[in-house]
């Protein structure tokens, strides 16, 4: 199932093994592998154009630094195939690639389970990401949920559509994404200010990268980019 990215070279002798280069790397070997050899890509433009999908989801923009597009095929309530495209850094590319593997491996993930996939599940499979790179992995699952919703709508299962509903970001402080949205709307546009309002991430730092991403997202949404 693995498709290896081949660096198209302008000269014949340039068939460099892209994993042979640096010894010390910023990311884990798994991240590196998925970055240089991303899985589940369209092989050709023709394949992309003719791909018969059941759902498509897109999230982000080139302006915010990450953009993901995901296509899924569904059968027997499971995800049978998945293709994707990502604009973003190594973490973003590796996260989407890993997610595509997770939802389509074996007999395929149950659609309702895929709906519940969290960024941390992907990060764990990647063998961790540097903390300040967590935010690069939080868009993939959103794109996936959008693709699943699209599938539900297309197949007349509108009752199953889950609009991005309130999601608990900090399980200890029980802070939801909606709470953060409210805080930003009230003028708190820095992490410090949001923390003062919501206590999010105090004593539970693992959620902070996601919180920062949310603050930025809502800040841009309501106040525009700087």
């Amino acid at each position, binding site marked *: 199932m693995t498709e290896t990215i081949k660096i198209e070279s302008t000269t014949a002798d340039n068939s460099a093994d892209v994993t042979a280069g640096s010894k010390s790397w910023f990311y884990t070997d798994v991240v590196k592998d998925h970055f240089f050899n991303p899985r589940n890509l369209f092989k050709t433009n023709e394949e992309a154009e003719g791909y018969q999908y059941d759902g498509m989801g897109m999230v982000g923009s080139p302006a915010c630094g990450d953009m993901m597009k995901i296509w899924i095929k569904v059968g027997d309530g499971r995800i049978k195939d998945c293709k994707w495209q990502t604009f973003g850094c190594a973490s973003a590319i590796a996260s989407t690639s890993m997610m595509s593997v997770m939802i389509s491996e074996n007999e395929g993930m149950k659609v309702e389970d895929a709906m519940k996939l969290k960024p941390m599940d992907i990060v764990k499979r990647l063998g961790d990401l540097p903390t300040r790179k967590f*935010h690069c992995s939080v868009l993939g699952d959103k794109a996936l949920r959008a693709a699943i919703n699209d599938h539900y709508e297309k197949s007349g299962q509108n009752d199953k559509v889950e609009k991005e509903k309130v999601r608990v970001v900090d399980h200890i402080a029980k802070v939801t994404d909606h709470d953060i949205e409210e805080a930003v709307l009230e003028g708190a546009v820095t992490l410090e200010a949001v923390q003062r309002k919501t206590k999010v991430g105090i004593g539970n730092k693992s959620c902070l990268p996601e919180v920062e991403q949310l603050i930025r997202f809502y800040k841009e949404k309501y106040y525009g980019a700087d």
Partner: protein
Amino acid sequence: MKEIYLDHAATTYVREEVRQAMSKYYSEEFGNPGSFHTIGLRAKEALAEAREKVRKLINAGREHEIIFTGSGTESINMAIKGVAAANKDKGKHIVTSKIEHEAVLETCYYLEKREGFEVTYLDVDRYGQVNPEDLKKAIRDDTILISIMYANNEIGTIQKIKELAEIAKEHKIYFHTDACQAGGTLDIDTQNLGVDLMTINGSKIYGPKGVGLLYKKMSVKMHPLIHGGGQENGMRSGTENTASIIGFAKALELAQSEREEENKRLLHLREKLVDGIKEKVPKVMLNGHPTERLPNNANITILDVEGEAMMLYLNEYGICTSSGSACTSLSLDPSHVILAMGLPYEVAHGTLRFTLGKRTTEEEIDKVLEVLPGIVQSLRRISPVNLTLEEVQK
């Protein structure tokens, strides 16, 4: 695999001549220049010689105008905070630009936040230059300092320092320039430039790290940041880093004597790189000024792909570059320099900076041109983005 280092704006290696000039001052001539015995006096003489060399190179009036520090960042901090502290009775307003190095920006933020100063951050044009008219408009009765960088570290754009310094002089305001990127390639004659304060550091001119220079005209009122034994004419206490200072002086001497010749060589290689990329990769733009830029700097944006991803691919081929994308910075925001030029976030996220140096060869540039198009093609194939140059440049 042979590594191809194209990140000389980050730091340079130490030249052999410099290393040799320094080597004696670690275990043989280790003396404290402040001591009265022979060993100390020999160190003092060596230090005085280095200072005189630097004085001549930057055409300063007196030896006391040369202050050696621990880094470019320290020199900048001293210039800004030191002038602010000594002149706050006259006013608490500073003018700088939006594209300065963090050493300047963060110091200014500090003065705003903690010391009640007001700072005006001048805009730059599409090519990264400050408009002298904007400076004139920003000057107030309580302006005490203007700090504008000589050449930008990201995009290589060179400012009209003479013109800007002249405006400062007319208004009797001190003018500081951060010349860290210019020390090896541009004219650093302080009288010719008309600056009152100037920062240069060792690690960008094939000298040692951990040494900086602050030129301060005698007439400039400035407080020291570091108090103690009164070294550097009371402006920077702490036993002098003799070896590094000697290395710095040697590096500056070599760089300045070779710069005309070397600049031509760098310019040729840079043009070859930029032209080659434009020819082989569609949808590429050069950021910064087309002509008023450092000869070794090529900052480009490649649309539809993200900078860090390109950088890491190049790294796998042993090619060392840097990027202004958010993912290579500590914040979530991409380069403040690219954004200050009025370019959109999409452009900032896709930047790649190549900074050439003394060891850069034609073959190395050829290698980049051979590898880069394939990397871009691969990353574009997995990218859902398809921008046009027209839409990002409008």
